[in-house]
């Protein structure tokens, strides 16, 4: 593991070196390190690139790290990871990906992650995407996340992309049975000519299922972001989507909501607000002695906290 590797690991997964417990570290398409435990088993797939992560029923307070590093240009991979979360388990999954591309060829990582949560299972899923490097090559992520929650299961997802990623198209699909819950907190910052597209489709199938999706985004330079959500309420359920965006420079944010109350008992809400930083916020901070630029940075830092 060299300096770039450990810096990327720290940024995307708060890791200082090799973690404890179950983990799978992948670098430039190859396995770098893996540890499988009795509670959380990691099995490589035979038919395609990727792993199966099997969490035994009732396993609680355990975590698994599956970071991915990409430090070369001219490299594109698609990885299929399937997560089977046993009944009543309660785990944290940290799945960041860091690209460092100093080359002129493109680097792209596409992770297709599917989560199968049994009854009463709980997952906290942390996904950080980060890219660095001065090469002209693109740094891209096109993740697909599929979430299937059985009765009373709960999936909480925190996804963060704070800079350097040339282009990303993220698709998230969730299907929720009775009393199942999906909580999403998404934070995206784009600059220059970067482009970020996120799409959510959530099917609230079960009675008393809930979905709460909050997206906070900051678009700088000439970057473009597009946020789409599609909530389908097929039962007595509650769904809430919030898209909050700050625009700077010549950036653009497009928010497209769709809510479909198939069942008359469904209650679905969509909120969206996009605009520049409020003048009075800058004024207040400048009256504390900050310059306009410092005030802007403070507002953004707080917003994406």
């Amino acid at each position, binding site marked *: 593991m060299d300096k770039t590797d450990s810096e990327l690991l720290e940024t995307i997964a708060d890791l200082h070196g090799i973690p404890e417990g179950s983990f799978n570290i992948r670098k430039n398409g190859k396995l770098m390190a893996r540890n499988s435990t009795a509670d959380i088993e990691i099995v490589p797939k035979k038919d395609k690139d990727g792993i199966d992560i099997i969490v035994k029923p009732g396993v609680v307070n355990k975590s698994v790290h599956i970071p991915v590093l990409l430090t070369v240009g001219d490299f594109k991979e698609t990885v299929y990871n399937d997560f089977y979360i046993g009944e009543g388990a309660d785990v944290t999954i940290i799945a960041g990906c860091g690209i460092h591309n100093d080359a002129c060829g493109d680097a792209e990582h596409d992770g297709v992650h599917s989560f199968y949560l049994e009854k009463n299972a709980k997952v906290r899923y942390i996904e950080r995407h980060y890219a660095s490097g001065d090469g002209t090559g693109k740094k891209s992520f096109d993740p697909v996340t599929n979430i299937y929650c059985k009765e009373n299961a709960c999936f909480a997802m925190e996804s963060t992309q704070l800079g350097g990623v040339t282009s990303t198209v993220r698709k998230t699909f969730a299907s929720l049975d009775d009393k199942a819950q999906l909580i999403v907190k998404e934070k995206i910052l784009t600059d220059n000519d970067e482009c970020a597209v996120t799409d959510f489709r959530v099917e609230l199938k079960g009675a008393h299922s809930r979905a709460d999706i909050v997206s906070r985004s900051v678009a700088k330079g000439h970057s473009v972001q597009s946020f789409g959500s599609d909530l389908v309420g097929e039962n007595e359920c509650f769904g809430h989507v919030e898209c909050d965006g700050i625009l700077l420079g010549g950036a653009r944010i497009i928010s497209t909501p769709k809510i479909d109350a198939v069942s008359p008992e469904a209650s679905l809400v969509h909120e969206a607000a996009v605009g520049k930083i409020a003048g009075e*916020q800058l004024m*207040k901070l400048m*009256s504390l*002695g*900050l*310059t*306009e630029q410092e005030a802007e940075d403070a507002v953004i830092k707080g*917003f994406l906290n």
Partner: protein
Amino acid sequence: MLELKNISYSVKDETTGRTQEILKDLNLAFADRGINVITGPNGSGKSTLIKLVMGFEKPTAGRVFFNGEDITDMNVTERARRGFTIAFQQPVRFKGITVKSLLELASGKKMDTDAMCGCLSAVGLCARNYIDRAVDGTLSGGELKRIELAMAIAKGGEVFLLDEPEAGIDLWSFEDLVRVFDRLRDKTVIIVSHQQRILETADKIFLFESDKVSSAERGEDMFALLTRRPALCWRDVKEN
């Protein structure tokens, strides 16, 4: 000494194109030490004056002097660094910025819990319950006003501009608030207020009316100034 010389401020109504004069040829001086309370009917231009002094707006005519230096063209950041400190009539809300980080931005340095406790307990808030809260709509109106004042205390300065600091503060906390002002008496303090209890603490009172400002100092009969009903007040409008 803070001096305002021949200050006028007018705004243009975008829809009608008419100019409205809010402040007209105002001459005011505030001493280096002491509490000045500005009072007057709603809409008489008190907050406008505060904003002019802080540099949020530029006067359409006239100059502002601080310790003899013309600061009329100085921006907000520079004035803040020179010791101008403001507490807004309507505190600004932020998404995600915590009380802790605002206090640190105000004081210009990292603060430990003791230091934050000092600023917050002065305004009757317990640091433990507030430092990690976001300064947004989840705080009550009175809590926001108290935090606004705590920020001014954390920042410190030479000239304090406090726009209706008592608004929204409960009755039982008034005396504590007066104590906060008292501690600033060796600075230039300009408070906009409608409250008798605050007026009583003043070394000098300024009464804003539609077209003029009158003042009275401690020792003079300050309250005689106020018993006269100023023009522009609510009762006049209703009676017209």
